[in-house]
Structure formats: structure tokens, C-alpha cells
């Protein structure tokens, strides 16, 4: 895992600290509550600015340029659209179906707009980012591919189930196996599509990013995660199997659970945390490393990432415990801690001078007109 760093690697650094961020965060929170949520648009800007400004490499930092007003208008538009959508869909089922199709057509456009907005509002070393993904491609990546994959798998699985149950034919095992493999392949496949779409269409000024990772490493990451689930699940089953089986036995009899069985429910929760969450950290950490290590920025620049899944898992787990025990007052500390960890395991490999990024002047003119989409949840996230 700990490969030697290539010569000339420049470390990313997060210079924020918990004390300072705490003050900003708590004032944000108070003002957001007092203004019944309106200030949260400005709070978002301040938050982003704080984390961007304090993230540096070779002494240059990131910056975020959106204004609270832009964010607020974007949110109001999305909210009004959502309410209209809900009310109109509730009128009758056929209209609801039509609206769903309309939404599917509009969603890719919204996603692209939002990514454009976020990119243009972010800068590094005084040069704005840009995003040039097309709506058509977004439709393929975010709508067509996931739905298509699901339908394909459902059909194959259905055939398998039919052969197994109705025809009593062992031939049915094949489609069932294909279904499981398909489900397993689908996630990394779509994840890669999304990352490709995001990274390859982002640019810094006029210099484009390019990610060059085949499906293989994504599959490997998923395989590692699946391996953890199987292994830890097996251990869990061996240790607690009998009491859980007894629990489900009584559940099927239809009785209300006894206090001892509430304990079993708790155990299942803990099991969930210890089996599935680390798996997701394994996948994310491995993919992050592979993506950074194989992404380039025009001008011969490269990146290095070597985060460890276990360390990430440990930070997230201990953060959660501390934050809960302090009634959320330590949340800023936890956020700074994770930002510091991620930055300190990321490097830039400059291939030429960082003085020579060229701003995309055209984009600068267009910013104001296009500034009105801020869809939370579609922050695809720029470096670090």
C-alpha cells in the first residue's frame, strides 16, 4: 500500500482548525435557525469558502465565489418546482406518470446545470473551474444506464426463477448466478460512468482533467468490499447465529418481542455497522486512490492519493461517538479532522509551472446568467 511517492510530489494541506471553524459554524447555525432557514444559503457559502480557502497546495488555495443570494434563489426555484410537481402528480395517476417522465427528462439537465454552477463558482490559484458535460451524456449516465442495468438484471433473474420454480429445471441456476454477478458488477460499472462523466468534463481554466481507469480496478475495489462482507458476516454468524435464529423463530410465530429479543435487534444493528459500513469505506478508499493516481490535468500534472480504508473507518466511527456524546458540539472538530486526514494523503504532481493556467474568459461572462442551479446532493466535489 505504502508505495514511494514520486519525486516532486507536492502535498495538499488543510490549514483550518477546529476552534476557528467552531465559531463560524455555531454562528451559521444560530443565524440559520433565527431566520427560519433563509440564512442557511449564506451559511453554505461561508462553509464552502472556509474549507476551500484553507485547502492549499504549493501555497495556492481554492476559493468559492457563489453568493448567498444565488444559492437562495436556486433553492427557492427547486423548492417551488418540487411543490408544483407534487401537487400536479397527485391529481391523477396518469398525470403522475407523465410528470415522472418529464422529471426523468429534466433531471439530467438539472444535474449538468448544477455541476456547471459549482465548477464556475470554484477556483484554484485564481483560475475558475469549468464543466462541459452534455445533457445527453448525463441522461445516459444518470438515467439510462442505471434503469437499463436494473431491467436487464430483473429480466435475466426472472427467467432464472421461472426455470427453477415452474419448470424445475436446474438450467435456471445459470441466470440466477448471472443475476448475482450482474448486481455485483452493476454498481462499480455505474460508479465509474459517473466519475468519468464528472472528471473528464471538468477543467481548470481551459486545461481539462482526464481520468484513465479501466473497469478492472473498480471491480477489484467492489470485490474487496464484498470479501469483507462475506468474511465478517461469517464471523458474525458463527458467534451470534443461534440467538439470531431463535429470534427470527419467535418473530415468525407472530408474537411481540421480549426484552431479551430487543437486545438481539440491537445486535443486528451493530452487526450492520460492522459488516456493511467498513465495506463501503473499503470500496470508497480504494476507488479514491485509484482515481487520483490515474487522473491528469492538462499541462502534465498528476495526482497521488493513498488514504487507508481502516483509518477512514476509524476516523468516521470515533467522530460519530464524540459528536453524539457532545450533543453535536464537536461536529466542527470532526469535520476538520476528516478534511485534514484527506488532504494529508493527497499530493499534486506538477508537470509544469502552476503559473500558466489560462482562465476561460468566455465562461466568466456567462456566470451570472447561469447561476441559478444549486441542487444539493449533486455536489460531485472538486479536488480533496
Amino acid at each position, binding site marked *: 500500500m505504502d508505495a514511494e511517492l514520486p519525486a516532486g510530489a507536492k502535498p495538499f494541506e488543510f490549514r*483550518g482548525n477546529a476552534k476557528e471553524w467552531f465559531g463560524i459554524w455555531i454562528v451559521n*447555525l444560530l443565524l440559520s435557525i433565527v431566520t427560519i432557514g433563509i440564512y442557511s444559503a449564506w451559511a453554505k457559502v461561508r462553509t464552502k469558502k472556509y474549507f476551500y*480557502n484553507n485547502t492549499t497546495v504549493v501555497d495556492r*488555495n481554492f476559493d468559492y465565489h457563489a453568493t448567498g443570494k444565488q444559492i437562495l434563489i436556486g433553492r427557492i426555484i427547486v423548492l417551488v418546482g418540487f411543490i408544483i410537481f407534487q401537487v400536479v402528480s397527485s*391529481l391523477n395517476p396518469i398525470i403522475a406518470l407523465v410528470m415522472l417522465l418529464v422529471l426523468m427528462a429534466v433531471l439530467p439537465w438539472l444535474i449538468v446545470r448544477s455541476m456547471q454552477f459549482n465548477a464556475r463558482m470554484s477556483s484554484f490559484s485564481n*483560475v475558475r473551474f469549468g464543466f462541459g458535460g452534455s445533457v445527453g451524456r448525463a441522461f445516459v449516465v444518470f438515467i439510462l444506464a442505471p434503469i437499463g442495468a436494473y431491467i436487464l438484471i430483473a429480466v435475466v433473474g426472472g427467467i432464472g426463477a421461472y426455470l427453477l420454480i415452474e419448470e424445475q429445471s436446474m438450467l435456471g441456476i445459470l441466470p440466477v448466478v448471472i443475476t448475482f454477478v450482474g448486481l455485483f458488477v452493476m454498481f462499480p460499472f455505474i460508479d465509474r460512468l459517473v466519475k468519468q462523466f464528472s472528471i473528464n468534463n471538468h477543467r481548470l481554466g481551459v486545461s481539462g482533467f482526464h481520468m484513465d481507469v479501466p473497469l478492472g480496478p473498480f471491480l477489484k475495489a467492489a470485490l474487496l468490499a464484498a470479501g469483507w462482507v462475506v468474511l465478517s458476516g461469517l464471523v458474525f454468524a458463527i458467534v451470534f447465529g443461534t440467538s439470531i435464529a431463535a429470534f427470527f423463530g419467535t418473530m415468525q410465530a407472530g*408474537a411481540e418481542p421480549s426484552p431479551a429479543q430487543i437486545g438481539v435487534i440491537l445486535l443486528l444493528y451493530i452487526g450492520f455497522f460492522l459488516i456493511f459500513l467498513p465495506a463501503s469505506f473499503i470500496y470508497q478508499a480504494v476507488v479514491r486512490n485509484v482515481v487520483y493516481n490515474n487522473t491528469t490535468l492538462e499541462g502534465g500534472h498528476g495526482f497521488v492519493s493513498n488514504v487507508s480504508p481502516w483509518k477512514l473507518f476509524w476516523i468516521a466511527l470515533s467522530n460519530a461517538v464524540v459528536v453524539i456524546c457532545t450533543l453535536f458540539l464537536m*461536529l466542527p472538530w470532526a469535520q476538520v479532522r476528516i478534511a485534514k486526514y484527506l488532504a494529508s494523503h493527497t499530493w499534486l504532481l506538477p508537470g509544469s509551472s502552476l503559473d500558466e493556467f489560462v482562465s476561460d474568459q468566455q465562461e466568466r461572462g456567462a456566470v451570472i446568467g447561469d447561476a441559478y442551479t444549486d441542487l444539493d446532493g449533486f455536489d460531485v466535489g472538486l479536488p480533496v
Partner: protein
Amino acid sequence: MEEQTAHNTRGGLQGHAYPHRTSRREDAVLETRAGGQDLWVDIKSPEGEVYESAYLSEVQVDPPLGRAARKLTLPLGTVFETDDHAGIENLTGETHGSKLHHWEAFSPRLVGVVVACLAAVWVLWRYGLDIMAAAAIAMTPAPVIEQIDRGTLQTLDFRLTKETTLDEQQQAQARQIYRRLVSELPEDVQEKHSFDLLFRSMPGLGPNAFALPGGTMVMTDQFIKDFPDDDVIAGVLGHEIGHVVEQHGLKRLYRSLSAYVLIAFLAGDVGPFLEDIVLEGNVLLSLKFSRDQETDADEFGLSLAKKAGYEPQGLKQFFEVLAKKYGDREPPRWASTHPSNDDRLKAIDQFIDELR
């Protein structure tokens, strides 16, 4: 701008410049000189080359944010950054955002902000959620609520229930009691909800009855078989009518949605573990809300049954039998959507006394 020797006494502010919208980062000095009414600002290299000059009033000064470098943008796009916070403050005086920055500083004063925040969060949780839920209910069109009932019933019929095995006479008995109870409600309330009573065979559920948000009521066959007594039926139906009239189902639905929105808005991105824990915690807290609703519905049902001329003891009888049959299998109080039978019986006794 032609070069001039600046008569700056302080030697200028040390920092870095990105001249004219480039990513070129240079050591730079900010110097000022008198320029008529306004102050003239020069951004220069240490060697004295001027990158850009402008009137101070034309310079965009970013608000202060922690210890992050202060940033000044000149009209032609030259950016000057400096860590000399005091120097900038001397230059510009109070800027847009200075007050905010002052309040954000880590000092004993923040304790007051923290206390105000905790108080505000408590008020939000205690009253804000109810207000949000009430507003959402008021904005929900009636067809949507009816659709919820229809959808839920379809799902139930598909997965859990079978057709009723009760004969006409048994159904008529319960319907009659139900109508008598409903007719005791104020007229506008009667019109607002559908108040349909349905019977279903649900062997897994035992003697039970439940109401859907729009007013559809479902009673299990087992209930009529175990409790043919009019007073018991009236007590339990009254309780369920209470849920419908006070819109408990919708309130619970919207409350949990509002809580989710609030948490998302206030806490923002909290990370994978916390998100799960917060959502589970929210479920536990909403259970308390649900238990309070049950107690409310009990009281509503008791008054309604009495008004319609039934003996309120009926509801008590029902819980006594339940306690005998299932008492040893109750979950602990904190993990349940309903109060324990013992608590309920005590509360019912007390309320019946008050009714007299």
C-alpha cells in the same frame, strides 16, 4: 498607470498577487497614496513594477473568514492576498462582514451563542416540528390523503389480509356502533373524513383495529370474535376515531419528514455514521410522540363513547384482557409505539374518574 514614487510611510502590506486574472503567483506589496478624494491603491512587485492600481472604493474586499488570507480584487482582475489582517483592517476600516467575523471569534462570548443555539434547537424540536407538520397538513389536498388510504389498503390486502369471515349480523353490529359514535362528532368533522369501516381477516394481528390517515378504519375478525361486547367495540372504535380526527397519522408522517429536513438543513453533511445514528435516534424520539398520541386517542375515545351512551369501562376491559393474555411479552417502554398496558389502564381509570 505610470510609475511614481509612493510616499507611503509604512512600507506597504506584504502579500502575494495574481496579476490580471492569471494563475501567476508573485510576491507583492500593497501601497497607498493620496489620490484626491479617495485613496489610491497600488499593487506592486517587490522590485517596484506596478501590476495594477485603483481607487480604494473600486477595490472589492472579501469579508474576513477565520485566519484565511484576506483577498482584494481590483477592477481589471488583479488579486492581492495577504495574511496581514491588521494591516487590511487599518486600510479599509470596518468592512462588510466585520461584525460577523467578530462574533465568530473563539472567545467566552461564544458560550452565549452556544446556549442560544441549544435553546433554539430545543424550541424548534418542541414547537417548530409541530408547526411545520400542521402547515404541511393544511397544504395537503384531500385527494392525496385519500390516495394514501387507498394505496395502504391495497398493499395490506395484497400482503397481509384475507377477506372477512364475519357474518352480516356481526358486521352490522359493529357498523351500528360506529355510526352512533361518528354522529356524536361535530358536523364539520364528520364531513372532513370518509369514516369507512372495513373488516378483514388478519390472523397475525390478533384482536386489533387501526385507522389510516384519511379516515379508513380496519377491524380484524378476531376482534369481533373475542370481544362481542358493545361497550368494548365502542371504546376501541372511539379510540381509533380519535386518531383520525386529530390527524395523528399525518402528523407523525410529516413530523418525521420535517425532522429529516431540519437535520439535513442544520447539521449539513455529517458523515456516514452520524447520518445513520441521527436517523435512528429520530425514530426513538418519535416513539415517545407516538405513545403520547395513543394516550390522547384513549381520552378522546372514552369521552366519545360516553357521549354516545356507552360505558367507558369497555376500553378498560379490552386492555385488561390484553394484559392477561400478552402481558409477559411486552417490549420495554422506550422501544414501543404504544404505552404499556399497565400505564394505559391507570391513565384510563383516572380519566374515567374525571369524566364523572
